[in-house]
Structure formats: structure tokens, C-alpha cells
């Protein structure tokens, strides 16, 4: 056989080989990056707690929706109300898409308020969603104190309000409630864990607390036996009514000026972040997008809602990646509101509004 006779076959073979090479490459490149990989979740908390359970409820669904179904391991970096973990994710964790942080919402507030120990930049850190965000806070007094309505509450002097610590969400909001309602000569007693504080309220060591709606699962008899009086509510996000407390006045209705409204808005946006997932800032965009998409799909999965309720004991109120980014972007940062908020979060005298 002459070479000329082979030429058509050689041409066809070469063409086929070229086609194989051309089309084979995309086939290999479509192998998901996360296949066979392990993602480390860096928790800004100790193991256990509700924050841990919230994350653990999400992980099986995140694994399901990230192409390649990576494995997950959990690392706990407790300290500074999440600051330690946020600092680590921001500046030390490898930005390869295999390190994801999850921290409490205090990480956002600490950065805006310029608290000690913050070494991360809120605007450079990607916030990519949270399994919960909505909640309601109430101002509650013990029935024995005899403050059945707002009029009596406002007329009472020396109310002892209990909280976890200076700067804690419940402490700060308790002071905001007191200032907005114009309560007289309030005293703040701190240093309680939540169960200790609940017992202290019933024991008469303190008269009032500010609490989110999860108290109802903890102390249903407070409502059933009418052991406490509810006075005022803060809805987060604004406009979401809790069926049990829909008759309570919303705190915004007592705001007399723009300054107060900005303060309340700042509190809401701090709290709205829930327990956000965060990424190291230099994480490649395509990998960050894969994780965000995984979270979007996980949060929308009906089975996630069931599983979350089973594991955590409450309904999820997810904040999607884009909403989380927007919430961070929209945070009021004007120095006047920040200064005012810091006064409410601090131990000094109660500012007037």
C-alpha cells in the first residue's frame, strides 16, 4: 500500500485524535473541584451550644449541594465572642475554598463598634449566609413586681434589669428599651448565664429581663401560669409578627426622633446577621460561588427545614448569601449612631434619647 492511499485514513485518524484531545480536556476539567476534598468549618464557639447545632444541621445539605460532595470536619476556636475565629479566618486560614468560618453575629457588631481584639475588616470579609436571622425580643417583668401595664412600668423607679454581661445583646437592648420607654432610675445586674438569669428573675433577685422568643421553649409556664408581664417587642426583621406577641407594641412606635430610629435600625441589622458563614477574603471567586450556591440550595430544601427543626428545636429563618452581604453593606456606620450605640452597650449612665 502506497502512502497516498493511506493519506485519507491518516487524515481521519489525526482529525479524530484532535477531536478526542479537544473534547477530552473539558471532560477532565469538569471534575468537580470539591470531589474527594475536605472542607474545614471553623466555629467561633465551643462545641455543643445552639450555634454548633445550627451549623451541624446545615452541613449534610451543604455536602449534598456542593458538586463533588466534599467531606466536612469541624474545628472549634472559642474566644472573644467569635473575634478569635474571625481574626483567624480573615488573616491566617488558607484561602483555598476549603476553609469556611461560622461565627456569632457579635462579630459584626464588634467590628462596627471598634471593640478591642478585632483584627478583621468587615468590608473585606465575605459573609455568605446564615441559617437563622429572624427573632423577636421582649421586655419582661416578674408579675410579683406589679407592673401590669406600660403606665405602671414607666412610673416605677429602681427597676433591676438582669443580663449576661455588659455589651451583651440582651444588656444593650434592655438599656435601649429602658431609654425608649423613659424608665426611671433603672439598675443593671449582670454576670448571669441565661438559666441563672431566669432563676434569678423568679427568685426576685432581679425584676426584669430582655429576652428573645426562645424563652418560650425554655419557660412555657411563665406564660401559662402568668408569672411574668410582657411590655414591648422588637421584631427582627421589622414587620414580622410573632403570633404570641402580636398585641405588644413595637419598640419603634415609641421612637421620638431620627436618632432613636437609627439606633434601633443599627441594633436590628447587627442581629439580622444571625450566625453567618464567612470566608477568607482571598478565596477564589469560583470556589466561593460554589459554596454560596450550595448554601442557597440547602436553605431552600424542604428537608433542611424539617431536619433543622429536629436538630435545633426551632424553625430556620435563613439569610441567603446576597441578603447577608447586603445586610453588612447597609449597616449604619455614621459616627454619631456608633457612639450612641456604644454608650448603650457600655457600663456608663443611661444616655437620653
Amino acid at each position, binding site marked *: 500500500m502506497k502512502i497516498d492511499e493511506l493519506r485519507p485514513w491518516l487524515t481521519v485518524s489525526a482529525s479524530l485524535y484532535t477531536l478526542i484531545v479537544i473534547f477530552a480536556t473539558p471532560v477532565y476539567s469538569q471534575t468537580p473541584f470539591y470531589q474527594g476534598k475536605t472542607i474545614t468549618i471553623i466555629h467561633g464557639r465551643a462545641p455543643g451550644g445552639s450555634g454548633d447545632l445550627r451549623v451541624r444541621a446545615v452541613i449534610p445539605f451543604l455536602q449534598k449541594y456542593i458538586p463533588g460532595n466534599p467531606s466536612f470536619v469541624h474545628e472549634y476556636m472559642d474566644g472573644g*465572642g467569635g*473575634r478569635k475565629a474571625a481574626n483567624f479566618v480573615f488573616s491566617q486560614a488558607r484561602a483555598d475554598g476549603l476553609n469556611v468560618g461560622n461565627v456569632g453575629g457579635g462579630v459584626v457588631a464588634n467590628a462596627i463598634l471598634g471593640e478591642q481584639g478585632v483584627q478583621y475588616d468587615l468590608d473585606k470579609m465575605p459573609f455568605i449566609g446564615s441559617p437563622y436571622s429572624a427573632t423577636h425580643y421582649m421586655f419582661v417583668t416578674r408579675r410579683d413586681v406589679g407592673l401590669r401595664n406600660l403606665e405602671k412600668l414607666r412610673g416605677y423607679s429602681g427597676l433591676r434589669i438582669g443580663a449576661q454581661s455588659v455589651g451583651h445583646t440582651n444588656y444593650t437592648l434592655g438599656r435601649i428599651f429602658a431609654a425608649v420607654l423613659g424608665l426611671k432610675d433603672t439598675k443593671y445586674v449582670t454576670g448571669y448565664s441565661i438559666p441563672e438569669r431566669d*432563676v434569678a428573675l423568679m427568685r426576685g*433577685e432581679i425584676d426584669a429581663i430582655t429576652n428573645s422568643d426562645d424563652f418560650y421553649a*425554655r419557660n412555657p409556664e411563665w406564660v401559662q401560669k402568668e408569672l411574668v408581664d410582657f411590655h414591648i417587642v422588637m421584631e427582627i426583621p421589622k414587620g414580622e409578627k410573632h403570633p404570641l406577641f402580636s398585641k405588644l407594641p413595637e419598640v419603634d412606635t415609641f421612637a421620638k426622633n431620627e436618632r432613636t430610629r437609627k439606633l434601633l435600625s443599627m441594633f436590628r441589622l447587627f442581629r439580622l446577621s444571625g450566625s453567618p458563614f464567612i470566608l477568607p477574603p482571598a478565596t477564589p471567586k469560583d470556589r466561593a460561588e460554589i459554596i454560596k450556591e450550595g448554601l442557597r440550595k440547602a436553605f431552600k430544601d424542604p428537608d433542611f427545614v424539617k431536619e433543622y427543626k429536629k436538630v435545633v*428545636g426551632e424553625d430556620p429563618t435563613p439569610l441567603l448569601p446576597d441578603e447577608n452581604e447586603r445586610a453588612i453593606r447597609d449597616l449604619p456606620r455614621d459616627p454619631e449612631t456608633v457612639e450612641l450605640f456604644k454608650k448603650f452597650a457600655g457600663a456608663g449612665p443611661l444616655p437620653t434619647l
Partner: protein
Amino acid sequence: MEISLFSAAAQGFLNLLEFQILLAMLLGVSIGTFTAVAPQGLGMPLVYAIALPIVIKWKPITGIALLIGASSVSAICAAYLPILFGIPGGSGSQATVLDGYPMGKKGEGRRALGASFMAGGMGCLIGTFTLAAAIPAARPLIYLMGSPELFVVMLWGLSMVAVLAGRRPVKGLIAAAFGLLLATVGQQAQSGVMRFVFDIPYLLDGISISIIALAMFGIPSALDLALTKLGVEQQPVPLKGSLFDGAKDALREWWLVVRCSFVGVWVGIVPGLGSQVVDWLAYGHAAQTCKGGRQTFGQGDVRGVIAPESANDAKDGGDLVTTLLLGFPQGVVTALFIVALLAWGYLPGPEMVKKNPEIIYSIVWLQGISGIIGTLIGFGLAAQLAKLAEVRYSFMVPIMFIFILMGAFSVNRDPADLIVVVAFGLLGYFMRRYGYPRPAMILGLVLGDLMEKYLYRSVASYGFTWLSRPAVIGLLIISTASFLLTLRGRMKANARAKAEAAPASFTGAMARSEDES
């Protein structure tokens, strides 16, 4: 329809008579045993956190069997490290090291382990019986103890420095003051002020007590072994006697077991005390009240093992009293247990007592049965594990360091903890060498934070009228009497020592322990 408590107790037991449930309990017991013997740090909170998402998908009683099996046995088997290695076990077994380790060195390791298992098992049963008895009437007790009363209790605890300091009161006070000072590191909850933080995120929450305790007791033992070649390599534990000698000791000292078990139950019930103080309170009580205790505690007195171990194991029963009957947790483990109960549709607290008493009694039975199994496992495995004490020092020292460093790292997975454990380890070594009692420092560290919190809350809530509360007055009288009796005993012992022209025989537990090196 509500059922009687007797029927509920019977039904609670019948609930357990399924192969699957017994298997889950045994699995839990195995996990708990491993966790207790493994290096410090792989604690129950992590085990619960990992197990929870799995077990809540099981039938409730099966899941409860695994969780209770694991937690109840982990305290019973926590004495291996203190007795065999001189390293504090998990929180709640730290005081065991003071007499357990000297016993090991004297060739009484098996006896110490036997006493520990028997006292632990008895403590566990006393805690369980208390839980069962408390089901109808626990609530009022908890509401009687407010911040003022708790402050006085802490003050009482701090007076134990007088005992722990032994014949070196000044050094004891310095050590305790250093502990109190260390307790101030981090953000103060009452004012929000950062103290001694220097803008270092690691210090925001203070330094972990478990890391400090691990360092202060673990590193000096390992260093002593490496530098002096004394200890297990030069003086192999002869393993004289038997485990049953220790068991007999615990039975002979049954009244001490009962007293210390109730200390444990009480610590478990009262909110805010926690496992970090239970062993120290029981040890201090035993050192103050046992005949000749002031002379022998710290030198390898078996009562110094019996007291903390019985209290530590009984505490779990007390923890469950508040967890199940009031519905609030006493720590991470019971918090997670509540989460599991909620997932199964039970609401811990008065509602559960009313609606699901049979489940509460199932928990009571599981707690008791797991305690017995844990004791038997302790006796069964002790002989094997006690052989670890015969291993050469050249093999032991690296293993001890690995255990210590792994334990330190596993608490928070923070490399900075390794630096802290080495720094405090060296400090502990020099404190031991120069006779500064380390337990006095730990006591100051543990109680400092609590005392500050309770005092602040008392003054903030009541002004200075808290001092006139009847329970406060009662507790102040008891604690002052206890302190004065301790001082009197000490003065008498000093006088006797002078009269006999012998070396001072009265020393506290820690002074003995310090001297042993």
C-alpha cells in the same frame, strides 16, 4: 392520665428491657470509658456534640441510653491519669492527683484505683438515689440559693487555702492571690472592661482553667521524671495489695463516701458551681474532717482519693436534678442532653415530671446501671492499665508530654494553648520546687471569677442589705466556725510539733504534696 411515681419507676425500668437499648448503653459506656482514659480534652461535650445528630434519629430511650451510659461512666473511670501518671483527669478528678499519685508511687496504685472505682460507683448510686428522691421536691431548694448565699459559699471554699497551704501560710496566700489575679484576665462581665488583655485575642476570655491545671500538675511530674529520673522508672510501682483492698477502704470509709457524695450532689444541683470545684470542695472537706487527715493528706492517704472521686461521680445525679426537674442545664453536656430531649419531643422541667415521669425514671435507672457497669469495667481494666506504671521513664516521659500537649491542644484546637501549657508547666515546676502550693493557686483561680460575679450581683441587686439575709448569716456562721476550727487545729499541731522537737508534723495536703519531690 397521670400515673403514680411508683408505676412510673416500674415503667421506666421496663422501658430498658430491650436488647437494642442495652447495646446502646454498653456502647455509651465504652465511649465514656475511652474518653475518660484518653488524654484530657477529649471530653464529654465533644462526644455529645458528635453523637447528638446521630442519636436524635434513634428511638428516644435508645439515644438516652447511649448518652447517659457515656457520661455516667466517664467520671468513674477518670482516675487513671491522676493515679497512674500524676496528671489531673478531667475536671472533677483533679484533686485525686494529690493522694492518688503518691499512692501509685508507694506501690499502692491498684489500691488507689480500687478505692476510686468503688467510691465512684457508690457516689454514682447516691447521686442517682438523690435524683430519684428529688423528683417530687427539688424546686424550692434551688430558689433558696441566690447570689448572696453563693458568694458566702465561695468564701467558705476560699478559706480552704488555710488547709491547702499547710505549713507555708504565706506562700499559700501568695499562690492563692496569684490564682485570684489570673482569674481577672479577660473581659469583666460586670463592667465590660478588658483586664490584662493587651489587645491579644487569646486573652479576651481569660486563660482556660483546664489548660492551667493540666500544665501545673502534668508538666512538673513529667519534668521531675525526666530530670531526676525518680518516679516510676527508678521506683517501679510494686502493685502490692489488690484492687479489692481499695474497694474495702471505700466500704470502710462509707460515711466519708456518703458525706462527699452529698457535697457532689449539692454542687450538681446549685447553679453555677460546676465540676471544676466539686473535687476540691470534697477534698477540702475530707482534709478538714478526717481523723489525722491534716497529717496524712497529700502523702498518699486513700481517703484523699475516696473523697473527690465519690463527689465527682455523685455530681452527675445532682446535675440531672436541675436538668430534668427544672429544665435548665448545668453545663455543656446537660445543655446538649436537653437539646436531645427536646428533639424527641420531651420538654425538661416540671412539664416532663408531670407528663413523662417514666422517661425520667428510665434515665434514673440508666444512670444507676451504667454506674455499676462502669465500676465493674474499672475493676476489670485496672489491672491492665496499672501496668503502664511499670514502663521505663525513657518511654513514659515522651508519652506524658504527648498526652499533656495533645490534651492542651484538644481543648480549643488553638496552638497558643501549647505555649501556655509549657509556660504554666514551668511555673508549676518551680512552684513545686520552691514550695508554693499549686492547689491554693488553682483554688484562687477557680473561685476568683465566681466570687467576683456573686459579690457584684449581690451588691447590685440588694445593696449591702444582702448581709442581713438569714441564709447568708447562717452560712457565714458555719464558714467562720469551719475556718476557726481549722486554724485551731493547726495551732495545736504546731505546738505539739514544737513540744516534740520534731519536724513540723502538721502540714496541709498540698504542702505534703509539694514536699514529696
